[in-house]
């Protein structure tokens, strides 16, 4: 019994600060929020209500309409990212990684610039550029003879959400580009040379050799996009305000949570309904992460060199 090791105090000391801050500020509030969703307030006193808040959220037409609208918009926001951002990112990365390309570092740096800007800047910059008052966008379309195509895209119910999604794509395309670029660089030259020996070059090299090898990176990008999109708020708030106009056409879960929690105009804020929405978002994100971890990641074939 005497040879039992002493308690490893140094390990505890190394772990303690990070675990303490992380647990106190992140994990406990997360579960406290989930718990808060089970209460309601009567005369400013919290009263246990079970799943009553969720029944209101999904059952009461005043709430459920807004919730499904926000969820639907959020899903479309995500679809646009998957269909536009990630293919463009892959294409740019493939171009950047082509051997002997000059100025690659310059392109990489420049295309990543929008990603470092804040949503406030991006939202307002595009709002100004697309504004019919200033006329940068209409006069540019005029220059290529497409003036008739111009419309106040951010002001119309049908186009506002897609426009905002495309602005967000413009901002974040640098992230898939960089990650795919890194994945492409990590493919050993021998593999590509062996393919070349077999006469596989150019397009078919990309489709048959490189794309299968970067599928895991594309999977990671997809789940990062999913989490980021279902947690988005800033861009919509900065460019359309908390009301996510026109007529809630750009309302997503983040802005819906903000309005419910803090109130807007005449409606008072409701922390319990806010917590219920946050809980719904938690389960949506959790579901997405689980689908990725168990259904997608395990099926992706990884190659070791």
């Amino acid at each position, binding site marked *: 019994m005497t040879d039992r090791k002493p308690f490893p105090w140094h390990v505890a000391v190394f772990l303690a600060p990070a675990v303490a801050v992380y647990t106190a*500020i*992140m994990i406990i509030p997360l579960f406290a929020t989930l718990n808060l969703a089970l209460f309601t307030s009567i005369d400013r006193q919290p009263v246990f209500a079970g799943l009553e808040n969720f029944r209101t959220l999904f059952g009461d037409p005043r709430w459920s309409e807004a919730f499904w609208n926000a969820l639907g918009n959020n899903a479309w926001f995500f679809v646009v990212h998957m269909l536009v951002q990630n293919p463009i990112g892959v294409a740019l990365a493939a171009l950047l990684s*082509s051997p002997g390309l000059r100025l690659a570092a310059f392109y990489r740096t420049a295309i990543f610039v929008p990603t470092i800007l*804040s949503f406030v800047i991006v939202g307002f910059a595009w709002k100004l550029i697309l504004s019919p008052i200033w006329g940068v966008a209409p006069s540019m379309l005029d220059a290529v003879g497409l003036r008739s195509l111009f419309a106040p895209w951010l002001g119309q119910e049908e186009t506002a959400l897609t426009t905002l999604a495309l602005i967000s794509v413009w901002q974040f395309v640098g992230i898939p580009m960089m990650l795919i670029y890194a994945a492409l660089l990590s493919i050993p030259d021998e593999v590509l040379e062996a393919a070349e020996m077999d006469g596989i070059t150019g397009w078919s090299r990309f489709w048959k050799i490189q794309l299968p090898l970067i599928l895991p990176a594309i999977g990671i990008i997809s789940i990062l996009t999913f989490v980021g999109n279902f947690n988005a708020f800033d861009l919509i708030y900065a460019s359309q305000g908390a009301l996510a106009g026109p007529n809630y056409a750009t309302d997503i879960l983040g802005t819906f949570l903000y309005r419910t929690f803090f109130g807007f105009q005449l409606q008072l804020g409701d922390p319990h309904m806010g917590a219920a929405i946050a809980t719904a978002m938690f389960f949506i994100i959790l579901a997405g992460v689980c689908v990725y971890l168990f259904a997608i990641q395990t099926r992706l074939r990884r190659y070791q060199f």
Partner: protein
Amino acid sequence: MSAARALLGRSAAAHAILIAYTLIALFPVFVIVVNSFKTRRAIFAEPLALPTPETFSLVGYQTVTRQGDFLLYFQNSLIVTVASLFFVLLFGAMAAFALSEYRFRGNRLMGLYLALGIMIPIRLGTVAILQLMVASGLVNTLTALVLVYTAQGLPLAIVILSEFMRTVSDDLKNAGRIDGLSEYTIFFRLVLPLVRPAMATVAVFTMIPIWNDLWFPLILAPAEATKTVTLGAQVFIGQFVTDWNAVLSALSLAILPVLVLYLIFSRQLIRGITAGAVK
């Protein structure tokens, strides 16, 4: 001969596409910054022209410095970002060292627990975080923001840093132990200097979302004295919507510091992304 020409053609096409996309990426920034230096009339008459001696004007910047307290906002953003960065790097590196160096029961579980925060955004706990800050009297203080951003930055920092710390040679650390160095000295004197490049990468990744965040400043510290640049710009622009000079100048002032920092650190950032993915 024709193969060489085809290769040349392909590379020209690649450059054409990349140049086109670079223009798309930089164009909005260019339009904002250029027009912030022009008179109101010139902003509307020739939005795409560079400022000439006749159209040059700093009236927007004068309004911004007179009306908004941007110097204070910058100071707040700087304090919050630097303090959070310091704690994320220090605590993150310590925890990463514990996870990568020592074998103890629950090591893997602890690693998973700390990595959870990468997938589940901290914003979902906002309702309870606000209650916590109200209860502890930290609302409208920069401390509240520093605490939240430290918690937010830790998961990714720990994952990246422990990945790098596994590559530090065991022989070196054991040589230190034989010489009688304590575990703390080994960490601070031997390991930390060796993972400095990884620390720089984590710093850049942690810094950008903190500097740009709108959600937590809006909710936890919206008071005039604690506004960050991002929130300050948002509020200022909201009040001065019709004063285009002021709006464009405020946007430029918010863009330029980040842009300069990015250009200084971009190589580090890109090397970090590339190194992190190559296993």
